[in-house]
Protein backbone atom coordinates (compact mmCIF):
# COMPACT_ATOMS: atom_id res chain seq x y z
CA UNK A 1 0.00 0.00 0.00
CA UNK A 2 1.29 3.45 -0.85
CA UNK A 3 -0.97 5.57 1.33
CA UNK A 4 -0.21 4.79 4.95
CA UNK A 5 -1.19 5.90 8.42
CA UNK A 6 1.46 7.14 10.79
CA UNK A 7 1.26 3.88 12.75
CA UNK A 8 1.89 1.90 9.56
CA UNK A 9 4.90 4.09 8.77
CA UNK A 10 6.41 3.57 12.20
CA UNK A 11 6.01 -0.19 11.96
CA UNK A 12 8.54 -0.21 9.08
CA UNK A 13 11.30 1.28 11.25
CA UNK A 14 13.66 -0.81 13.37
CA UNK A 15 14.52 0.38 16.88
CA UNK A 16 16.79 -1.16 19.45
CA UNK A 17 15.38 0.40 22.59
CA UNK A 18 17.86 1.47 25.26
CA UNK A 19 17.02 0.97 28.94
CA UNK A 20 17.28 4.66 29.74
CA UNK A 21 15.69 7.56 27.83
CA UNK A 22 18.07 9.79 25.85
CA UNK A 23 15.56 12.63 25.76
CA UNK A 24 14.04 13.98 28.94
CA UNK A 25 11.14 16.43 28.91
CA UNK A 26 10.41 18.64 31.90
CA UNK A 27 6.58 18.67 31.90
CA UNK A 28 6.45 21.50 34.45
CA UNK A 29 7.92 23.89 31.89
CA UNK A 30 5.51 22.60 29.20
CA UNK A 31 2.58 23.05 31.57
CA UNK A 32 3.44 26.41 33.10
CA UNK A 33 5.48 28.33 30.57
CA UNK A 34 4.76 26.99 27.09
CA UNK A 35 1.62 27.76 25.12
CA UNK A 36 2.93 26.69 21.70
CA UNK A 37 3.74 23.01 22.24
CA UNK A 38 5.58 22.94 18.91
CA UNK A 39 6.99 19.48 19.66
CA UNK A 40 3.52 17.95 19.35
CA UNK A 41 3.27 18.99 15.68
CA UNK A 42 6.79 18.83 14.34
CA UNK A 43 8.04 15.50 15.69
CA UNK A 44 8.15 13.16 12.66
CA UNK A 45 7.62 10.17 14.95
CA UNK A 46 4.69 11.80 16.79
CA UNK A 47 6.22 11.06 20.17
CA UNK A 48 4.97 14.08 22.13
CA UNK A 49 1.51 13.62 23.61
CA UNK A 50 -0.28 16.63 25.13
CA UNK A 51 -1.86 15.88 28.51
CA UNK A 52 -5.13 17.27 29.86
CA UNK A 53 -3.27 19.28 32.50
CA UNK A 54 -1.18 21.09 29.85
CA UNK A 55 1.89 18.95 30.35
CA UNK A 56 3.62 16.83 27.70
CA UNK A 57 4.20 13.09 27.80
CA UNK A 58 7.22 11.93 25.81
CA UNK A 59 8.00 8.42 24.52
CA UNK A 60 11.66 8.01 23.66
CA UNK A 61 11.40 4.44 22.36
CA UNK A 62 10.63 5.24 18.70
CA UNK A 63 12.79 8.34 18.34
CA UNK A 64 14.59 9.07 15.03
CA UNK A 65 17.23 11.11 16.94
CA UNK A 66 16.71 13.89 14.41
CA UNK A 67 16.83 16.80 16.88
CA UNK A 68 13.76 18.59 15.51
CA UNK A 69 12.02 18.84 18.91
CA UNK A 70 15.09 20.37 20.50
CA UNK A 71 15.44 22.98 17.72
CA UNK A 72 11.70 23.75 17.63
CA UNK A 73 11.26 24.11 21.40
CA UNK A 74 11.40 27.74 22.48
CA UNK A 75 11.50 26.96 26.21
CA UNK A 76 14.93 26.88 27.75
CA UNK A 77 15.51 23.58 29.53
CA UNK A 78 12.22 21.89 28.63
CA UNK A 79 13.89 19.30 26.40
CA UNK A 80 17.21 17.80 27.35
CA UNK A 81 18.70 15.41 24.86
CA UNK A 82 21.77 13.41 23.97
CA UNK A 83 22.27 10.53 21.58
CA UNK A 84 21.30 7.11 22.91
CA UNK A 85 24.06 4.67 23.90
CA UNK A 86 26.12 3.28 21.03
CA UNK A 87 24.27 0.75 18.88
CA UNK A 88 20.89 1.62 20.45
CA UNK A 89 18.04 3.68 19.06
CA UNK A 90 16.97 3.85 15.44
CA UNK A 91 18.70 1.63 12.88
CA UNK A 92 17.85 2.53 9.29
CA UNK A 93 18.20 -0.24 6.74
CA UNK A 94 17.01 1.35 3.47
CA UNK A 95 16.92 5.10 3.75
Amino acid sequence: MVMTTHEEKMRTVRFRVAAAPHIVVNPDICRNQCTVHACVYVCPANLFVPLDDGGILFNYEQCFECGTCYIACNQEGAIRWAYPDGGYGVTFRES
Partner: protein
Amino acid sequence: MTTHPANQQFDVIIAGAGPAGSAAALLTARAGLKVLLLERGEYPGAKNVSGAVFYGSAILNELIPGWWEQAPVERHICRRNIAFMSPATAVALDFRCAGPGYATAPYNGFTVLRPKFDRWLAAQAEAAGAFVLTSAVVDDVLREKGRIAGVRVRREQGDIYGKVVIACDGVNSFLAKKAGLQREFHPHELSLGVKEVIGLDPAVIEDRFHLTGNDGIAFEYLGAITEDVHGGAFLYTNRDSLSLGLIGQISSLVERRKRPYELLERFKAHPAVAPLVRGGKLREYSAHLIPESGWAMKPKLYTDGMLVAGDAAGFCLAAGLYLEGMNYAMQSGLAAAETAILACQKGNFSARTLAVYQKHLKQRHVSTDFRAYRHAPSFVNGPRLQNLYPEIVAQGMEQIFRVDGAPKRKILPLAYRMVRQSSIKPGQLLRDVYQVARTYLW
Protein backbone atom coordinates in the same frame (compact mmCIF):
# COMPACT_ATOMS: atom_id res chain seq x y z
CA MET B 1 52.68 16.11 24.20
CA THR B 2 51.73 13.80 27.06
CA THR B 3 52.10 10.11 26.24
CA HIS B 4 49.18 7.73 26.58
CA PRO B 5 48.91 3.94 26.24
CA ALA B 6 49.55 3.00 22.60
CA ASN B 7 46.10 1.49 22.10
CA GLN B 8 44.49 4.74 23.24
CA GLN B 9 46.66 7.02 21.12
CA PHE B 10 46.01 7.80 17.45
CA ASP B 11 47.25 10.25 14.85
CA VAL B 12 43.73 11.08 13.71
CA ILE B 13 40.39 10.47 15.44
CA ILE B 14 37.30 10.94 13.29
CA ALA B 15 33.85 11.13 14.87
CA GLY B 16 31.12 9.94 12.53
CA ALA B 17 31.32 7.44 9.65
CA GLY B 18 29.21 9.27 7.07
CA PRO B 19 30.64 10.40 3.72
CA ALA B 20 32.79 13.13 5.36
CA GLY B 21 34.23 10.89 8.05
CA SER B 22 34.84 7.84 5.89
CA ALA B 23 36.47 9.90 3.12
CA ALA B 24 38.74 11.54 5.72
CA ALA B 25 39.57 8.14 7.22
CA LEU B 26 40.34 6.63 3.82
CA LEU B 27 42.76 9.37 2.82
CA THR B 28 44.57 9.64 6.17
CA ALA B 29 44.88 5.84 6.46
CA ARG B 30 46.35 5.65 2.97
CA ALA B 31 48.92 8.24 4.03
CA GLY B 32 50.09 5.74 6.63
CA LEU B 33 48.61 7.50 9.67
CA LYS B 34 47.09 5.65 12.61
CA VAL B 35 43.40 6.45 12.22
CA LEU B 36 40.35 5.75 14.38
CA LEU B 37 36.89 6.14 12.82
CA LEU B 38 34.09 6.21 15.41
CA GLU B 39 30.43 5.56 14.60
CA ARG B 40 27.55 5.63 17.08
CA GLY B 41 25.27 3.41 14.98
CA GLU B 42 25.22 -0.35 14.93
CA TYR B 43 26.95 0.00 11.55
CA PRO B 44 28.02 3.03 9.47
CA GLY B 45 24.91 4.48 7.81
CA ALA B 46 22.48 3.15 10.43
CA LYS B 47 21.65 6.71 11.55
CA ASN B 48 21.98 8.40 8.16
CA VAL B 49 19.29 9.66 5.80
CA SER B 50 19.51 11.62 2.55
CA GLY B 51 17.22 11.91 -0.46
CA ALA B 52 19.50 10.44 -1.71
CA VAL B 53 21.30 11.44 -4.88
CA PHE B 54 25.07 11.33 -4.53
CA TYR B 55 26.56 13.91 -6.94
CA GLY B 56 30.14 13.17 -5.92
CA SER B 57 30.89 10.38 -8.35
CA ALA B 58 33.82 12.14 -10.01
CA ILE B 59 35.28 13.02 -6.60
CA LEU B 60 35.12 9.44 -5.37
CA ASN B 61 36.47 8.22 -8.71
CA GLU B 62 39.77 9.94 -7.89
CA LEU B 63 40.04 7.91 -4.71
CA ILE B 64 38.61 4.62 -5.93
CA PRO B 65 38.69 4.42 -9.75
CA GLY B 66 35.52 2.80 -11.09
CA TRP B 67 34.02 2.79 -7.58
CA TRP B 68 30.45 2.27 -8.88
CA GLU B 69 31.42 -1.19 -10.17
CA GLN B 70 31.81 -2.42 -6.59
CA ALA B 71 29.68 -0.04 -4.50
CA PRO B 72 25.99 -0.53 -3.68
CA VAL B 73 24.61 2.14 -6.04
CA GLU B 74 21.01 2.22 -7.26
CA ARG B 75 20.63 4.14 -10.56
CA HIS B 76 22.69 6.81 -12.31
CA ILE B 77 20.76 10.04 -12.74
CA CYS B 78 20.42 11.11 -16.37
CA ARG B 79 16.94 12.65 -16.10
CA ARG B 80 15.97 15.53 -13.84
CA ASN B 81 12.58 17.12 -13.51
CA ILE B 82 11.74 20.29 -11.62
CA ALA B 83 8.01 20.79 -11.17
CA PHE B 84 6.02 23.84 -10.05
CA MET B 85 2.80 22.77 -8.37
CA SER B 86 -0.58 24.17 -7.49
CA PRO B 87 -3.09 21.91 -5.71
CA ALA B 88 -4.34 20.45 -9.02
CA THR B 89 -1.66 21.44 -11.55
CA ALA B 90 2.00 20.70 -12.29
CA VAL B 91 4.30 22.54 -14.74
CA ALA B 92 7.68 20.91 -15.19
CA LEU B 93 11.10 21.48 -16.64
CA ASP B 94 12.22 18.10 -17.90
CA PHE B 95 15.90 17.44 -18.46
CA ARG B 96 17.35 14.32 -20.04
CA CYS B 97 20.93 13.79 -21.07
CA ALA B 98 22.21 10.62 -22.69
CA GLY B 99 25.57 12.22 -23.33
CA PRO B 100 28.98 11.61 -21.80
CA GLY B 101 29.24 11.97 -18.05
CA TYR B 102 25.52 11.54 -17.45
CA ALA B 103 24.80 8.17 -19.00
CA THR B 104 28.44 7.07 -19.10
CA ALA B 105 31.30 6.83 -16.58
CA PRO B 106 32.12 8.48 -14.26
CA TYR B 107 28.42 9.44 -14.16
CA ASN B 108 27.05 12.72 -12.82
CA GLY B 109 25.14 11.28 -9.89
CA PHE B 110 23.76 8.09 -8.41
CA THR B 111 20.81 7.35 -6.22
CA VAL B 112 22.04 5.52 -3.13
CA LEU B 113 20.54 4.08 0.04
CA ARG B 114 22.65 5.49 2.84
CA PRO B 115 22.73 2.49 5.20
CA LYS B 116 24.21 0.45 2.35
CA PHE B 117 26.40 3.08 0.71
CA ASP B 118 27.86 4.51 3.92
CA ARG B 119 28.61 1.02 5.19
CA TRP B 120 30.50 0.24 1.98
CA LEU B 121 32.48 3.50 2.12
CA ALA B 122 33.50 2.92 5.75
CA ALA B 123 34.64 -0.59 4.75
CA GLN B 124 36.94 1.00 2.14
CA ALA B 125 38.49 3.15 4.89
CA GLU B 126 38.90 0.04 7.03
CA ALA B 127 40.55 -1.83 4.15
CA ALA B 128 42.98 1.09 3.82
CA GLY B 129 44.02 0.57 7.42
CA ALA B 130 41.71 2.73 9.53
CA PHE B 131 40.33 1.26 12.77
CA VAL B 132 36.54 1.42 12.60
CA LEU B 133 34.71 1.25 15.91
CA THR B 134 30.90 1.09 15.74
CA SER B 135 28.30 1.48 18.53
CA ALA B 136 30.57 4.21 19.92
CA VAL B 137 29.00 7.54 20.92
CA VAL B 138 31.41 10.44 21.28
CA ASP B 139 30.17 12.62 24.14
CA ASP B 140 32.89 15.21 24.50
CA VAL B 141 36.34 16.40 23.51
CA LEU B 142 39.37 15.95 25.77
CA ARG B 143 41.57 18.97 26.41
CA GLU B 144 45.21 19.10 27.34
CA LYS B 145 47.21 22.28 27.79
CA GLY B 146 44.54 24.35 26.10
CA ARG B 147 44.24 22.22 22.99
CA ILE B 148 41.90 19.44 21.99
CA ALA B 149 43.74 16.19 22.51
CA GLY B 150 41.14 13.50 21.98
CA VAL B 151 37.56 12.41 22.53
CA ARG B 152 35.49 10.88 25.31
CA VAL B 153 33.58 7.83 24.10
CA ARG B 154 30.63 6.67 26.21
CA ARG B 155 32.10 3.37 27.46
CA GLU B 156 34.60 1.96 29.98
CA GLN B 157 38.04 3.52 29.46
CA GLY B 158 36.51 5.68 26.78
CA ASP B 159 39.12 8.46 26.81
CA ILE B 160 40.97 8.18 23.51
CA TYR B 161 43.78 10.51 22.53
CA GLY B 162 44.71 11.76 19.09
CA LYS B 163 46.87 14.44 17.50
CA VAL B 164 43.97 15.69 15.40
CA VAL B 165 40.23 15.23 15.94
CA ILE B 166 37.95 15.62 12.90
CA ALA B 167 34.30 16.18 13.85
CA CYS B 168 32.09 14.65 11.15
CA ASP B 169 29.24 13.98 13.56
CA GLY B 170 26.45 15.44 11.48
CA VAL B 171 23.95 18.26 11.57
CA ASN B 172 23.49 18.14 15.37
CA SER B 173 27.27 18.08 15.96
CA PHE B 174 27.68 17.84 19.70
CA LEU B 175 31.45 17.91 19.24
CA ALA B 176 31.54 21.26 17.43
CA LYS B 177 29.44 22.70 20.26
CA LYS B 178 31.53 21.11 23.02
CA ALA B 179 34.66 22.52 21.38
CA GLY B 180 33.06 25.97 21.37
CA LEU B 181 33.09 26.18 17.57
CA GLN B 182 29.34 26.11 16.93
CA ARG B 183 26.39 28.01 18.42
CA GLU B 184 22.81 26.85 19.01
CA PHE B 185 20.58 26.95 15.91
CA HIS B 186 17.36 28.82 15.23
CA PRO B 187 14.29 26.96 13.90
CA HIS B 188 14.41 28.97 10.65
CA GLU B 189 17.93 27.72 9.85
CA LEU B 190 17.11 24.04 9.64
CA SER B 191 14.63 21.94 7.71
CA LEU B 192 13.16 18.59 8.58
CA GLY B 193 13.04 15.95 5.87
CA VAL B 194 10.60 13.05 6.13
CA LYS B 195 11.03 10.24 3.67
CA GLU B 196 9.67 6.93 2.51
CA VAL B 197 11.33 4.18 0.53
CA ILE B 198 8.59 2.59 -1.53
CA GLY B 199 9.19 -0.78 -3.15
CA LEU B 200 8.30 -1.12 -6.85
CA ASP B 201 9.17 -3.66 -9.53
CA PRO B 202 12.22 -2.55 -11.62
CA ALA B 203 10.31 -3.23 -14.88
CA VAL B 204 7.48 -0.96 -13.68
CA ILE B 205 10.01 1.74 -12.75
CA GLU B 206 11.62 1.59 -16.21
CA ASP B 207 8.27 1.75 -18.03
CA ARG B 208 6.71 4.34 -15.78
CA PHE B 209 9.64 6.75 -15.81
CA HIS B 210 10.82 6.07 -19.39
CA LEU B 211 14.16 4.69 -18.27
CA THR B 212 16.43 2.12 -19.85
CA GLY B 213 18.50 -0.31 -17.80
CA ASN B 214 20.10 1.46 -14.88
CA ASP B 215 19.07 5.00 -15.89
CA GLY B 216 17.45 6.98 -13.11
CA ILE B 217 15.43 10.19 -12.64
CA ALA B 218 15.34 12.80 -9.91
CA PHE B 219 12.12 14.81 -9.49
CA GLU B 220 12.04 17.94 -7.37
CA TYR B 221 8.79 19.74 -6.53
CA LEU B 222 8.11 23.33 -5.51
CA GLY B 223 4.92 25.27 -4.89
CA ALA B 224 1.70 24.35 -3.12
CA ILE B 225 3.01 20.84 -2.48
CA THR B 226 4.11 21.78 1.03
CA GLU B 227 0.96 23.90 1.43
CA ASP B 228 2.01 27.06 3.30
CA VAL B 229 5.14 25.53 4.84
CA HIS B 230 8.45 26.70 3.35
CA GLY B 231 9.99 23.72 1.65
CA GLY B 232 9.75 21.29 -1.20
CA ALA B 233 9.51 17.64 -2.07
CA PHE B 234 11.40 15.04 -4.08
CA LEU B 235 11.04 11.65 -5.73
CA TYR B 236 14.06 9.61 -6.84
CA THR B 237 14.23 6.24 -8.54
CA ASN B 238 16.27 3.43 -7.00
CA ARG B 239 16.81 0.01 -8.57
CA ASP B 240 13.64 -1.58 -7.20
CA SER B 241 12.21 1.22 -5.09
CA LEU B 242 11.40 4.95 -5.02
CA SER B 243 12.76 7.40 -2.47
CA LEU B 244 10.10 10.02 -1.85
CA GLY B 245 10.28 12.80 0.67
CA LEU B 246 9.11 16.18 1.83
CA ILE B 247 11.22 18.94 3.35
CA GLY B 248 9.85 21.66 5.61
CA GLN B 249 11.57 24.51 7.44
CA ILE B 250 11.15 23.90 11.18
CA SER B 251 9.98 27.42 12.04
CA SER B 252 7.26 27.36 9.42
CA LEU B 253 6.10 23.86 10.40
CA VAL B 254 5.73 25.26 13.91
CA GLU B 255 3.97 28.45 12.82
CA ARG B 256 1.50 26.60 10.59
CA ARG B 257 1.09 23.74 13.05
CA LYS B 258 1.60 21.19 10.30
CA ARG B 259 2.56 17.59 10.92
CA PRO B 260 5.28 16.59 8.43
CA TYR B 261 4.02 13.04 7.80
CA GLU B 262 0.53 14.36 7.02
CA LEU B 263 2.02 16.73 4.43
CA LEU B 264 3.89 13.73 3.01
CA GLU B 265 0.64 11.78 2.62
CA ARG B 266 -1.03 14.69 0.83
CA PHE B 267 2.02 15.02 -1.45
CA LYS B 268 1.69 11.36 -2.47
CA ALA B 269 -1.98 11.95 -3.20
CA HIS B 270 -1.33 14.92 -5.54
CA PRO B 271 -2.71 14.12 -9.02
CA ALA B 272 0.76 14.53 -10.56
CA VAL B 273 2.44 12.26 -7.99
CA ALA B 274 -0.14 9.55 -7.25
CA PRO B 275 0.28 7.77 -10.63
CA LEU B 276 4.05 7.65 -10.09
CA VAL B 277 3.84 5.82 -6.76
CA ARG B 278 0.77 3.68 -7.56
CA GLY B 279 1.12 0.01 -6.63
CA GLY B 280 4.18 0.62 -4.46
CA LYS B 281 4.65 -0.78 -0.99
CA LEU B 282 6.19 1.16 1.90
CA ARG B 283 9.49 -0.38 2.98
CA GLU B 284 10.86 2.19 5.41
CA TYR B 285 9.89 5.57 6.82
CA SER B 286 12.63 7.89 8.06
CA ALA B 287 13.41 11.47 9.11
CA HIS B 288 16.48 13.68 9.37
CA LEU B 289 17.44 17.33 9.80
CA ILE B 290 19.03 19.31 6.95
CA PRO B 291 21.42 22.23 7.64
CA GLU B 292 19.86 24.31 4.88
CA SER B 293 21.32 27.68 5.80
CA GLY B 294 24.79 26.76 4.53
CA TRP B 295 27.28 29.57 4.94
CA ALA B 296 25.16 31.35 7.55
CA MET B 297 25.40 28.44 9.98
CA LYS B 298 29.00 27.56 9.30
CA PRO B 299 30.91 27.04 12.58
CA LYS B 300 34.46 28.10 13.21
CA LEU B 301 36.05 25.34 11.13
CA TYR B 302 39.18 24.61 13.17
CA THR B 303 40.84 25.13 16.51
CA ASP B 304 43.94 23.76 18.24
CA GLY B 305 43.81 20.02 17.57
CA MET B 306 40.44 19.86 15.80
CA LEU B 307 38.69 20.30 12.45
CA VAL B 308 35.00 20.23 11.50
CA ALA B 309 33.64 18.75 8.22
CA GLY B 310 30.43 17.62 6.49
CA ASP B 311 26.98 18.48 7.85
CA ALA B 312 28.66 19.34 11.17
CA ALA B 313 30.21 22.27 9.30
CA GLY B 314 26.92 23.14 7.56
CA PHE B 315 28.28 22.03 4.17
CA CYS B 316 24.90 21.30 2.63
CA LEU B 317 24.00 23.38 -0.42
CA ALA B 318 20.26 23.95 -0.50
CA ALA B 319 19.86 26.62 -3.16
CA GLY B 320 16.81 25.85 -5.26
CA LEU B 321 18.39 24.36 -8.38
CA TYR B 322 20.92 22.60 -6.20
CA LEU B 323 20.29 20.22 -3.34
CA GLU B 324 23.64 18.66 -2.58
CA GLY B 325 25.25 17.46 0.63
CA MET B 326 27.12 14.18 0.25
CA ASN B 327 29.54 15.55 -2.34
CA TYR B 328 30.44 18.54 -0.15
CA ALA B 329 30.68 16.27 2.88
CA MET B 330 33.17 14.13 1.01
CA GLN B 331 35.16 17.10 -0.31
CA SER B 332 35.37 18.72 3.12
CA GLY B 333 36.35 15.37 4.69
CA LEU B 334 39.15 15.08 2.14
CA ALA B 335 40.24 18.68 2.76
CA ALA B 336 40.34 17.94 6.51
CA ALA B 337 42.35 14.78 5.80
CA GLU B 338 44.89 16.71 3.70
CA THR B 339 45.19 19.20 6.55
CA ALA B 340 45.69 16.44 9.14
CA ILE B 341 48.35 14.75 6.99
CA LEU B 342 50.26 18.00 6.66
CA ALA B 343 50.00 18.68 10.40
CA CYS B 344 51.35 15.19 11.16
CA GLN B 345 54.28 15.78 8.80
CA LYS B 346 55.05 19.04 10.57
CA GLY B 347 54.38 17.62 14.01
CA ASN B 348 52.37 20.73 14.78
CA PHE B 349 48.63 20.70 15.52
CA SER B 350 48.00 24.30 16.49
CA ALA B 351 45.14 26.29 15.01
CA ARG B 352 47.75 28.19 13.03
CA THR B 353 48.90 25.03 11.28
CA LEU B 354 45.37 23.71 10.84
CA ALA B 355 44.32 26.99 9.23
CA VAL B 356 45.55 25.47 5.96
CA TYR B 357 42.19 23.65 6.00
CA GLN B 358 40.70 26.83 4.52
CA LYS B 359 43.06 26.61 1.56
CA HIS B 360 42.16 22.97 0.96
CA LEU B 361 38.44 23.73 1.20
CA LYS B 362 38.95 26.37 -1.46
CA GLN B 363 40.96 24.06 -3.72
CA ARG B 364 38.18 21.50 -3.45
CA HIS B 365 35.63 24.21 -4.34
CA VAL B 366 33.72 23.83 -1.08
CA SER B 367 34.14 27.30 0.38
CA THR B 368 34.03 28.92 -3.06
CA ASP B 369 30.65 27.31 -3.88
CA PHE B 370 29.20 28.17 -0.49
CA ARG B 371 30.46 31.72 -0.69
CA ALA B 372 29.03 32.11 -4.20
CA TYR B 373 25.60 30.93 -3.00
CA ARG B 374 25.77 32.49 0.46
CA HIS B 375 22.70 34.67 -0.18
CA ALA B 376 20.68 31.87 -1.73
CA PRO B 377 19.34 29.91 1.27
CA SER B 378 17.60 32.74 3.11
CA PHE B 379 16.04 33.90 -0.14
CA VAL B 380 15.52 30.75 -2.20
CA ASN B 381 14.22 28.82 0.80
CA GLY B 382 11.81 31.64 1.61
CA PRO B 383 8.05 31.63 1.08
CA ARG B 384 7.81 33.43 -2.26
CA LEU B 385 10.32 31.40 -4.24
CA GLN B 386 9.49 28.02 -2.77
CA ASN B 387 5.74 28.36 -2.55
CA LEU B 388 4.12 31.41 -4.06
CA TYR B 389 5.79 31.92 -7.44
CA PRO B 390 5.81 28.22 -8.41
CA GLU B 391 2.12 28.07 -7.59
CA ILE B 392 1.42 31.20 -9.67
CA VAL B 393 3.31 29.70 -12.62
CA ALA B 394 1.29 26.49 -12.34
CA GLN B 395 -1.99 28.40 -12.14
CA GLY B 396 -0.90 30.67 -14.99
CA MET B 397 -0.24 27.72 -17.28
CA GLU B 398 -3.61 26.32 -16.36
CA GLN B 399 -5.20 29.59 -17.57
CA ILE B 400 -3.07 29.79 -20.72
CA PHE B 401 -4.01 26.26 -21.82
CA ARG B 402 -7.68 26.56 -20.89
CA VAL B 403 -10.08 26.79 -23.86
CA ASP B 404 -13.50 27.68 -22.56
CA GLY B 405 -15.01 30.00 -25.15
CA ALA B 406 -13.75 33.14 -23.41
CA PRO B 407 -11.44 35.43 -25.41
CA LYS B 408 -7.77 34.50 -25.35
CA ARG B 409 -5.65 36.73 -23.15
CA LYS B 410 -2.03 37.46 -23.86
CA ILE B 411 0.47 36.36 -21.26
CA LEU B 412 1.52 39.76 -19.92
CA PRO B 413 -1.98 41.00 -18.93
CA LEU B 414 -2.72 37.54 -17.57
CA ALA B 415 0.44 37.59 -15.46
CA TYR B 416 -0.32 41.14 -14.33
CA ARG B 417 -3.78 40.10 -13.16
CA MET B 418 -2.44 37.04 -11.34
CA VAL B 419 0.18 39.03 -9.50
CA ARG B 420 -2.44 41.66 -8.59
CA GLN B 421 -4.69 38.92 -7.18
CA SER B 422 -1.86 37.46 -5.10
CA SER B 423 -0.34 39.00 -1.99
CA ILE B 424 2.80 40.06 -3.88
CA LYS B 425 3.57 43.75 -4.27
CA PRO B 426 5.00 44.82 -7.65
CA GLY B 427 8.09 46.33 -6.04
CA GLN B 428 8.69 43.08 -4.20
CA LEU B 429 8.38 41.15 -7.44
CA LEU B 430 11.02 43.31 -9.13
CA ARG B 431 13.36 42.90 -6.18
CA ASP B 432 12.85 39.12 -6.31
CA VAL B 433 13.60 39.00 -10.04
CA TYR B 434 16.82 40.86 -9.34
CA GLN B 435 17.64 38.47 -6.47
CA VAL B 436 17.06 35.40 -8.63
CA ALA B 437 19.34 36.87 -11.27
CA ARG B 438 21.99 37.74 -8.69
CA THR B 439 21.77 34.22 -7.22
CA TYR B 440 22.07 32.22 -10.42
CA LEU B 441 23.24 34.40 -13.29
CA TRP B 442 26.39 36.17 -12.18
